[in-house]
């Protein structure tokens, strides 16, 4: 299992010819594969590419897109850009987190089904407030009740 896992990793690195300038793209592809960046994966990438682990870790922690903790099957992003903020992104976040029983800094439910995060701007300000699910599903002009309805649809399919 472990061997196979690293084989996939190696394939990604190879497809970029191990170029250091492609590190971000490599991390993006790896994260797509595992949904997050496990520590041993970062170490493997560093060794395979012949660069210090600190470099890989440094890049992985710098960008908001990368996560070093596992994410849920459904990643719900609540846009909190200016337009969404002034039109009520906060109550949506509040309702969602309450429904999923997320407390403190927690972003992901214990069963790894849902991750709730706020992002700074999705660029659909005309539809504010906006919520997306796994990038491909966009819901505009959201309300706290509306978002719970969307959530229920996903809970049902599980």
């Amino acid at each position: 299992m472990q061997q196979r896992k690293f084989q996939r990793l190696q394939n990604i690195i190879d497809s970029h010819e191990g170029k250091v300038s492609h590190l971000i793209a490599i991390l993006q592809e790896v994260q797509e594969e595992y949904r997050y960046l496990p520590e041993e994966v970062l170490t493997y990438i560093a060794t395979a590419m012949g660069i210090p682990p600190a470099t890989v870790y440094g890049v992985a922690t710098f960008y908001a897109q990368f996560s070093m903790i596992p994410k849920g099957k459904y990643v719900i992003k609540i846009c909190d850009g200016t337009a969404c903020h002034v039109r009520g992104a906060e109550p949506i976040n509040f309702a969602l987190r309450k429904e999923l029983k997320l407390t403190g800094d927690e972003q992901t439910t214990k069963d790894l089904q849902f991750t709730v995060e706020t992002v700074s701007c999705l660029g659909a300000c005309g539809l504010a407030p906006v919520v997306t699910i796994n990038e491909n599903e966009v819901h505009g002009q959201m309300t706290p009740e509306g978002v719970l309805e969307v959530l229920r649809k996903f809970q049902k399919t599980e």
Partner: protein
Amino acid sequence: MLKSKDDLLNLYKQTREALEREKMRILICAGTGCVANGSLEVYEELQDLVKKYNLPVKIHLVEEVGHEPYAVNISGCHGFCQMGPLVRVEPGGVFYHHVKKDDVQEIVEKHILNNQLVERLLYTHPVTGQTVATQDEIPFYQKQTRVALEHCGRINPDDLNDYIAHGGYQAIARTLFNMTPEKVIKEVLESGLRGRGGGGFPTGRKWQFAASAQGPKKYIICNGDEGDPGAFMDRSVMEGDPHRVLEGMMIAGFAIGADEGYVYVRAEYPLAVKRLKRAVAEAEKAGLLGDNILNSGFSFKVNIKEGAGAFVCGEETALIASIEGERGMPRPRPPFPANKGLWGCPTIINNVETLANLPSIILKGGKWFRGFGTECSPGTKTFALAGQVAHTGLVEIPMGMSLREIVFEIGGGLRENKKFKAVQIGGPSGGCLTKDHLDLSLDYDELRKAGAMIGSGGLVVMGEDTCMVEVAKFFMGFVQNESCGKCVPCREGTKRMLEILTAITEGRAGEEDLLLLEELALAVQDGSLCGLGKTAPNPVLTTLKYFRDEYMAHIRDKKCPAGVCKALLDYHIDQDKCKGCGLCAKVCPAEAITGNKKEPHVIEVEKCLKCGTCMEKCKFNAIYTA
């Protein structure tokens, strides 16, 4: 494969003829906004129905010969996102809004088959009640002048031939065969085009530096890392007219002697990435990108690079570091990227909108471009109009238009008859303007005088129920989060500023904190290394300048006049107005509301989370804050 200028001209003629043979063209907006509202379902339904009615329909512009009369296509963003999904029917530019899958049958039967308008889907003016049929008659569009957005919403972004039929790649052909690099730069200088990313540096001057710089190789970078909260014009251009961006890059490349370019796009814009990648592949296949383009001797290659989520990467030097695969941290300038940029080579970084203006400047001339806008800020500028304005969306207007015209004429004023309070312009780098600025001419220099800046063009309208201190805190939270941490004034300064602002909104601050906040703001502005830190205090400084009384209300009276800052409010139920419907108790997430049916309810102050859900839901306006 196009091998010469004549090949391109022939393709233009062929595609143009195909376009003119179309009896009707139905365009369904497939920008992010409309897709979110289900425009792709509308598109599919339309395709199914035209098949069912056995109509001669084509999907691509030229490939399906013999299917001329009707064309069904997706298009890029029309800008009027809030009204989506949008459908535009040519000829005439008939404009349907809020089109759902179930409406398609009526459009086909009435409009396509019988040439009658589907009245109920047309735009009705909210005040006059007058219904208009075409896009050009809608007030939102009437005051606009479209240059960069010329084709957005008119062409299929996934079809190279459609772009060519609308005159695409003619500008690069003219550049390659009729102009020298010097002449291209001269034309751009004459146009007076200034960088549309926010800085406003003259594009031609920047190019001059790179053209005269020495290096083994030169690069063009298209900055599509639109991180400003509240701005989305670059996304719309990349999604709606990707070939135009590529053509702009090629013109810039020819002017400075570069043979390679990068488009740096935010990962948050997956549709833009997809459309750009497709555009690059199609242009390569057609011979419009690659080696020896149209046999002119000029070669140009374009790579698409996805960002990974860092606001600071909008800063030139940080963006370069990010393309090189490193942490996106800025470095001191000089040397400027025009001399030492990507991998140490002379590099020009232009914003998406800047590049999208270039084909028109080349084809119509710098003088023509100068005909729009003001003396020092020529041309047009796109703004993302959002917030509490009635009509939100993307607008392109000549520079120099007043804020009043944008907010009240194009934007139709504030929704729900709220009173206008402020406009936040230019995102975290910009500032807040008040009703005293409504007649200010929107150009680079006037805005800078008022303490704000155009930035990337985000324009968020705020009504009376927005707390300006909270808005300042919101932006400070954003920049504090996005500070790369390299230089101390930005890393520590913004953190302390956020602490003070938080204390103010929670009623814990004194007047001396306000002085410290101001002092810190000026220190961060002076001491920071890059644009992020230098402009981070702008929202604080402008709100302090124009809304000082609101700060004082929070500090002295421990009150939030707009009723936003939760720590300073308590929710109560007006016992006379409450009808005891129980809706508030039902929606209260904290179960803080109690009461018997048909009797006035009460809120337990200790349990109340101050989320405001009850107030929103109450039909009798019985809930108030104090």
